């Protein structure tokens, strides 16, 4: 204890001194030095002091403990507070995080919901669109049908008008015949005047001829395109003359109507045939002439010209009428466009345009307001032979051809072969479609001639198959059915020409020339 007390060097005063003494004594004893025994009072003092020291040290220790304890408690306390704070902060933070997350989730949910709605809307719109689309298609189909019907109706109406005009003209042509013959036969004295009789009879004859022409006009309209079946070519000048005489009642009447005269002149040169249906060409020219008449309410001149062009024949219808403005010129070929108000169907020129196109030609329009209009139609030459199908015209001599004939009728095929040899051609035979195709793959033929009615593969199918393999191959179809059937039905695609049996030498020659010309 003393050692411990000695180390507290701050112990003050006497005690300190006593301690030093004791220490010294202790040390001396140890070293064996003699020392004075300390004063008994000192020893009492020392004991007192030591006790006091003892109590002091207890006190210090106690205080120390207290201080330590308080400090520790303080530390712990603060520690706890800090921890509590931190925990609270953490909790707050966590709560905020959760709130934010919840909010974000909510946002996402909303967005998702909106997206879903949008998708739904889009889907609905799509359905609606496709519904509208199919309705539009339907309507388009209906409109096209209606257009076809309207065009048909206009045609019928035009035909009806023509027919009633024809009836009127026919009656007019008959009138002098009926009247004069009645006069000559029933009224006494008339027959005696020879000169008059002659005049009357001449009028009768002319009227009878007029009546015939009227009937011819009628026939043209109901026969339509079917008449010139096999070789669609037109002798231009002939058709021009026909159109002029066809329209004569109109431009002749016009002369008397307004007191104005319409002259129709023709300046026709020698031109070759064109590849166009004669009745179609006639309808075209008739249309143009009548338009010209309408354009000349005060009279004028219509000139029709034909001449050789660079790639074909040019036919002109030239009038001295009112002409067309730029705006009218742009639209005049449009269907349903008319400058004639209710009277006009607007279909005349568009039909003209369609016909000329079908004939492989083009139209030029030269017009000036106040001076007149000129329609120039360019038509390509007809390269397939003679325009006169009734005449026994000899087509250009053809080179020797190598021909494949297909027919299930052996005898008929043999007869055809004889004709071919007579014309200087060589022939391969096939008795049905399959054999024909086999031979066709291997051989090179200028022409394939096939019967129409055959078992297994008929002529139509065979032709289509051949054209699929070689679209340039010339195919002639032979048919035993009457001319009416051929005339009415359309030429099947794949067939360049149809001829009917029995086949004659000249018919065969013409047909071969036509497809290889």
């Amino acid at each position, binding site marked *: 204890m003393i050692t411990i007390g000695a180390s507290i060097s701050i112990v003050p005063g006497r005690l300190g001194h006593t301690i030093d003494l004791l220490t010294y004594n202790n040390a001396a004893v140890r070293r064996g030095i003699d020392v004075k025994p300390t004063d008994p009072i000192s020893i009492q003092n020392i004991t007192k002091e030591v006790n006091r020291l003892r109590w002091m040290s207890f006190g210090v220790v106690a205080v120390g403990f207290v201080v330590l304890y308080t400090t520790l408690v303080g530390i712990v306390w603060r520690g706890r507070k800090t921890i509590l704070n931190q925990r609270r902060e953490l909790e707050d933070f966590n709560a905020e995080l959760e709130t934010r997350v919840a909010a974000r989730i909510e946002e996402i949910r909303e967005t998702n919901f909106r997206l879903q709605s949008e998708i739904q809307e889009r889907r609905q719109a799509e359905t609606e669109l496709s519904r509208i689309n199919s309705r539009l298609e339907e309507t388009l189909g209906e409109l096209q049908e209606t257009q076809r019907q309207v065009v048909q109706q206009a045609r019928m109406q035009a035909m009806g008008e023509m027919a*009633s005009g024809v*009836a*009127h003209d026919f*009656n*007019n042509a*008959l*009138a*002098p*015949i*009926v*009247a*004069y013959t*009645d*006069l000559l036969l*029933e*009224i006494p*004295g*008339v027959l005696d005047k020879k000169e*008059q009789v002659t005049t*009357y009879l001449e*009028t009768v004859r*002319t*009227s009878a001829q007029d009546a015939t022409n009227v009937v011819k006009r009628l026939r043209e309209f109901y026969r339509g395109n079917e008449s010139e079946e096999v070789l669609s070519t037109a002798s231009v000048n002939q058709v021009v003359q026909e159109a002029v005489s066809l329209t004569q009642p109109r431009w002749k*009447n016009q002369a*008397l*109507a*307004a007191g104005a005269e319409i002259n129709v002149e023709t300046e026709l040169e020698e031109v070759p045939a064109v590849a166009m249906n004669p009745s179609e060409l006639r309808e075209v020219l008739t249309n143009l002439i009548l338009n010209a008449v309408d354009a000349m309410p005060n009279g004028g001149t219509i000139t029709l010209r034909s001449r050789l062009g660079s790639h074909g024949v040019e036919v002109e219808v030239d009038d001295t009428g009112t002409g067309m403005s730029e705006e009218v010129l742009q639209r005049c070929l449009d269907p349903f466009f008319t400058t004639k108000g209710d009277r006009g169907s607007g279909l005349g020129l568009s039909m003209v345009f369609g016909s000329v196109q079908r004939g492989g030609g083009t139209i030029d329009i030269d017009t000036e307001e106040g001076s007149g209009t000129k329609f120039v139609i360019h038509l390509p030459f007809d390269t397939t032979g003679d325009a006169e199908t009734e005449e026994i015209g000899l087509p250009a001599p053809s080179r020797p051809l190598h021909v494949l004939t297909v027919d299930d009728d052996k005898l008929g095929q043999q007869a055809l072969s004889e004709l071919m040899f007579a014309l200087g051609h060589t022939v391969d035979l096939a008795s049905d479609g399959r054999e024909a195709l086999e031979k066709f793959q291997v051989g090179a033929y200028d022409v394939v001639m096939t019967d129409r009615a055959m078992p297994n593969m008929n002529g139509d199918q065979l032709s289509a198959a051949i054209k699929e393999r070689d679209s340039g191959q010339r195919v002639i179809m032979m048919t035993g059915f009457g001319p009416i059937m051929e005339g009415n039905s359309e030429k099947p695609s794949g067939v360049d020409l149809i001829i009917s049996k029995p086949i004659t030498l000249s018919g065969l020659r013409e047909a071969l020339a036509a497809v290889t010309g």
Partner: protein
Amino acid sequence: MLKILVADDDSVIRQTVSDIIATNSRYEVVLAADGDEAQRVALLDSPDLIFLDLNLPKIDGWSVCRFLKMSSATDQIKVVILTGLVQGSVRERTLEFGPDAIIEKPFLARQILEIMDQLLVDG
């Protein structure tokens, strides 16, 4: 002499009817080629009878007929319609200011002569 007006746009018809009328010396003929001329000649030449085609240019036959029948200057002219248009309505239109007779084309010569005799009996 009774004056007959022949109004038709077809010159052959005009000639035919004239020739028929000419076989009877009682009649003389004047001609017109359109409705306007027909009315003018009717007013100026005062014919006794008119053969009137329906299909006249400028003014059609029906209008000319009405005109003649409505006007006191011309309502005594006999009107005979000549028509090649055989329509049902032709008959119906004989009511008001209508013609005195209708003859359809083609007609016999005798029809022309007889109708004239019939309508112009009183000279």
